[in-house]
């Protein structure tokens, strides 16, 4: 078959060669009966001309379409849209005929289009444009005949009528209804934006109508190729990425649309702003925080963080309209109560209903906690909204009942959850909450001796706070939280033996707390107190008595002044802890009697907290640690009889704590210490079997803890000490082989610790003892010299040196 251009070349030559060829002759030669092209369009298309210019000239019996196309509405767009009049004798209606700019040649696509069209045609809702007819042409082009809505686009309408936010929400709720109706039938719109929502005013009542469904834009292609339409700023990220979409994509667009309507002309397309700028735009227009939170919830980047369905979003909008608490904030019980109070002014039946359900929610929740059913709580974790709550308010509750083990589960889940949240797109309140949650997660990890995880959580908390640093409204919580996290970080770093980093973080924490104190002198001095206390410990640990004493005294003064300001068990507790630090200082650098007297002050304060507020497990724990320390002091002072009494008290408290919180390693460690003390005292009393029994109990605990976190040197030291003590009893019972094994094990544990932290005198001391016991005096000697020079002073140690003639 010749190309048409070749044929035309032929014709061109023919007519050039012979000017005399008559066209009719040519046609005859070609075998055309009638000339295909006449002399004038007047002859070739006479009826069309009449129809075009003067339809009344057409013969009466001319059969025309039931549609009469009036005009093309759009031009140059993706699809051709015509306004037409339908009149087939039955009814007259203005319709829109739309030819979609896609060719559906694949049979699957054709069927899909027709199915969806049928589905939409069956949807009868005042908020959805009716599909009257539709199909696919011979050229594979899909088309639709739609009801014509003679109204303004929703954004123009809101602007023209100058609607208030509440009026906009009212209008918007109808839109939510329509979309919900659609979603419930498994249809997704996928192009929600102002241009696709018209306001149909019937009897002066405006009603938004959704036009241009995805199907009407050819969006229903989700398999073949990424031929996805959408609108920048409105379409959900997963849609823009060409991924699979569902109703949550519409929720995203709807959130953006609401935001756009609220800001009106002040922003061209809020969907193009980053979260921070968008929230600023809302704030500038004094849009209520609750409303902003609804928009933020709807427009989360990750689908799982959005409202999961239209109904949820609609409910929150409705709640907002009537001053009810929002679903997306039901994690703050205080928020609900606050709302409930403000709502009672309205005193509507609805509000009472929600009040009851809110209380029900809370009641159910606490009953689950008190029954301590892990499984239920884990199941509950699956609900996104609860995570942050779990790590904030719940944290305190769970630590009080000592369920660190549950907290561990909660924390792991919550950390996963927190990691999925994009901090940049959260509002300030959520960012603060996230930071708190991370801080609490860090505390949990720290309590579980999982120092790496703890440090990572703290760093994430600090990162979350970062975005708040320049927000004047959040100055106080920002400083307070930052000081707290730096402090916590310092504590964890101490346990890891990170000398410089610990000091750095603690000093930063102190400087931030002082900033806080300068700006808010009337506020609680917790951050200042914590910073001084931790610095006191730190400088003692690393042999800087002057600095240590300064911080300890400041901590005591702070706690005292807070105690005169208000009656608070927390501050009594804090004061007892501050005395505890002082007692250790006095033991190391002063008089042991003084130390015993100070620790007794601390214990009497601790007793007060337990007697007057016995529900807080932390107060019991404080009692236990103080008793253990008193014991140690007595032993140092050789007051064994007094020690015997206290050690039994300590073991009692410790075992009861163990029952309440069997997986709380911190508590267990103190209990181990009490056992170890009992071992020592019985050893002194020559009750070797009871002594060994107690050492073994202690050893069992410290061994597990050491296995749990080998990087925690303090735990390693405890384990090594228990091995040395138990070994010594074996030795005394003439079980030399067992004794040797235990001592060797102690050396094996302490050698790497000493290498990594040579300046810690306690660790060095432990290693030396183990070395002496195994008879490795040559290795012990230089270490002893080192330790002596650091001013280490310990009766037992001195006795040992004398015994082996090493002093």
């Amino acid at each position, binding site marked *: 078959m010749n190309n048409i251009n070749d044929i*035309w070349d032929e014709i061109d030559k023919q007519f050039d060669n012979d000017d005399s060829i008559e066209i009719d002759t040519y046609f005859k030669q070609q075998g055309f009966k009638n000339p*295909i*092209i006449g002399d004038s369009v007047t002859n070739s298309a006479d009826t069309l001309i009449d129809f075009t210019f003067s339809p009344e*000239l057409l013969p009466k019996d001319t059969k025309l379409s039931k549609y009469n196309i009036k005009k093309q509405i759009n031009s140059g767009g993706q699809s051709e849209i015509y306004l037409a009049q339908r009149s087939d004798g039955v009814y007259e209606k203005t319709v829109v005929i739309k030819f979609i700019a896609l060719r559906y040649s694949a049979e699957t696509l054709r069927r899909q289009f027709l199915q969806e069209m049928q589905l939409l045609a069956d949807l009868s809702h005042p908020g959805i444009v009716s599909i009257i007819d539709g199909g696919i042409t011979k050229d594979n082009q899909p088309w639709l005949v739609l009801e014509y809505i003679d109204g303004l686009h929703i954004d123009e309408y809101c602007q023209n009528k100058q609607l208030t936010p509440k009026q906009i929400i009212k209008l918007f709720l109808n839109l939510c209804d329509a979309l919900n109706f659609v979603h419930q039938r498994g249809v997704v719109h996928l192009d929600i934006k102002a241009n696709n929502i018209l306001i149909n005013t019937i009897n002066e009542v405006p009603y938004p109508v959704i036009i241009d469904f995805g199907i009407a834009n050819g969006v229903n292609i989700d398999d073949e190729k990424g031929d996805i339409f959408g609108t920048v700023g409105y379409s959900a990220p997963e849609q823009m990425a060409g991924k699979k979409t569902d109703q949550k994509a519409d929720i995203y667009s709807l959130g953006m649309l609401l935001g756009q309507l609220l800001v009106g002309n002040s922003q061209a397309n809020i969907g193009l702003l980053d979260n921070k700028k968008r929230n600023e735009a809302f704030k500038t227009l004094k849009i209520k925080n609750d409303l902003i939170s609804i928009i933020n919830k709807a427009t989360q980047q990750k689908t799982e963080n959005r409202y999961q369905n239209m109904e949820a979003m609609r409910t929150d909008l409705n709640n907002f309209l009537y001053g009810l608490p929002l679903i997306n904030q039901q994690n703050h019980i205080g928020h609900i109560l606050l709302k409930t109070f403000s709502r009672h002014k309205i005193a509507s039946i609805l509000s009472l209903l929600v009040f009851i359900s809110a209380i029900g929610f809370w009641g159910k929740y606490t009953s689950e906690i008190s029954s301590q059913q892990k499984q239920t709580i884990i199941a509950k974790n699956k609900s996104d909204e609860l995570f942050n709550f779990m790590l904030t308010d719940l944290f305190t509750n769970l630590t009080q009942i000592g369920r660190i083990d549950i907290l561990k589960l909660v924390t792991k889940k919550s950390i996963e959850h927190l990691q999925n949240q994009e901090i940049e797109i959260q509002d300030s309140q959520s960012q603060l909450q996230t930071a708190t949650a991370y801080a609490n997660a860090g505390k949990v990890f720290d309590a579980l001796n999982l120092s790496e995880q703890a440090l990572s959580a703290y760093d994430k908390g600090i990162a979350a706070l970062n975005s708040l640093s320049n927000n004047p409204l959040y100055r106080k919580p920002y400083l307070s939280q930052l000081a707290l996290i730096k402090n916590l970080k310092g504590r964890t770093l101490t346990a890891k033996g990170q000398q410089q980093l610990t000091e750095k973080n603690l000093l930063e924490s102190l400087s931030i707390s002082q900033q806080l104190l300068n700006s808010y002198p009337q506020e609680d001095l917790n951050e200042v107190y914590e910073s001084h206390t931790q610095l006191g410990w730190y400088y003692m640990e690393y042999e800087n008595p002057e600095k240590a004493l300064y911080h300890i005294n400041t901590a005591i003064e702070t706690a005292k002044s807070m105690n005169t300001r208000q009656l608070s068990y927390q501050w009594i507790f804090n004061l007892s802890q501050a005395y505890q630090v002082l007692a250790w200082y006095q033991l190391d650098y002063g008089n042991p009697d003084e130390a015993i007297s100070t620790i007794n002050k601390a214990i009497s304060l601790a007793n007060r907290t337990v007697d007057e507020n016995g529900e807080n497990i932390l107060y019991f724990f404080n009692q236990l640690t103080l008793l253990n320390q008193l014991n140690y002091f007595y032993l140092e002072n050789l007051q064994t009889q007094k020690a015997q009494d206290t050690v039994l008290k300590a073991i009692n408290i410790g075992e009861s704590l163990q029952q309440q919180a069997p997986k709380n390693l911190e508590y267990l460690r103190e209990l181990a210490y009490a056992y170890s003390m009992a071992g020592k005292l019985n050893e002194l009393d020559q009750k070797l079997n009871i002594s060994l029994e107690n050492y073994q109990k202690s050893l069992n605990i410290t061994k597990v803890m050491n296995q749990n976190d080998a990087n925690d040197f303090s735990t390693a030291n405890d384990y090594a000490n228990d091995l040395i003590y138990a070994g010594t009893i074996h030795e005394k019972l003439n079980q030399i082989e067992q004794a040797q094994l235990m001592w060797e094990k102690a050396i094996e544990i302490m050698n790497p610790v000493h290498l990594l932290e040579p300046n810690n005198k306690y660790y060095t001391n432990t290693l030396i003892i183990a070395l002496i016991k195994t008879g490795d005096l040559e290795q012990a000697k230089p270490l002893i010299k080192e330790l002596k020079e650091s001013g280490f002073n310990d009766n037992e140690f001195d006795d040992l040196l004398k015994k082996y003639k090493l002093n």
Partner: protein
Amino acid sequence: MKISELTQLLNSNSKGLSNSQQNDMDLVYQKLKKIAKSQRFKIKNNGLNTTELVNEAWLVSKGGNKTFNDRNHFFAYCAIAMRHILLQQARKNRLLTYVDEDNKLDQQIIFQQSDYLLELERQLIKLKEYSPRLEQIFTYKFFGDMEFEEMAKLLDLSERTIFRDWKKAKAMLSVAMKT
């Protein structure tokens, strides 16, 4: 209107008309429609005739219309306008045959003529690629009923060339539409 603008208009296919061109086209359409109405009785039995429509339009617009330098320019413009106007109508008609399948519109003469024009348009676009002059001459003659003499003046060519081109264009389009 300058000849260059006319060429520009001719060069743009109907879908790519600029807004102002489209507005001009709509004005012409309204004018022609008005004329058609007023001529209704004169031409009742023969249907509308392009020549008469255009002649009448020229007479009507002559007084106030300063857009066109001369009658030939105006006629050429009208030819292009006619092509566009009829094409638009033909398109709508074809759309109607799609959306109104029940009425079997494709069996109606108006809709058959619409299809014919649409097919002709397709071939004209090809012809323009092959030879813009052939397409131009065909348009002026077929849609505007312009005389060979008028076209010769307008395009600054001999009447003989114009006539030969017209024959060529008709032959070529006929063959193309046949295949």
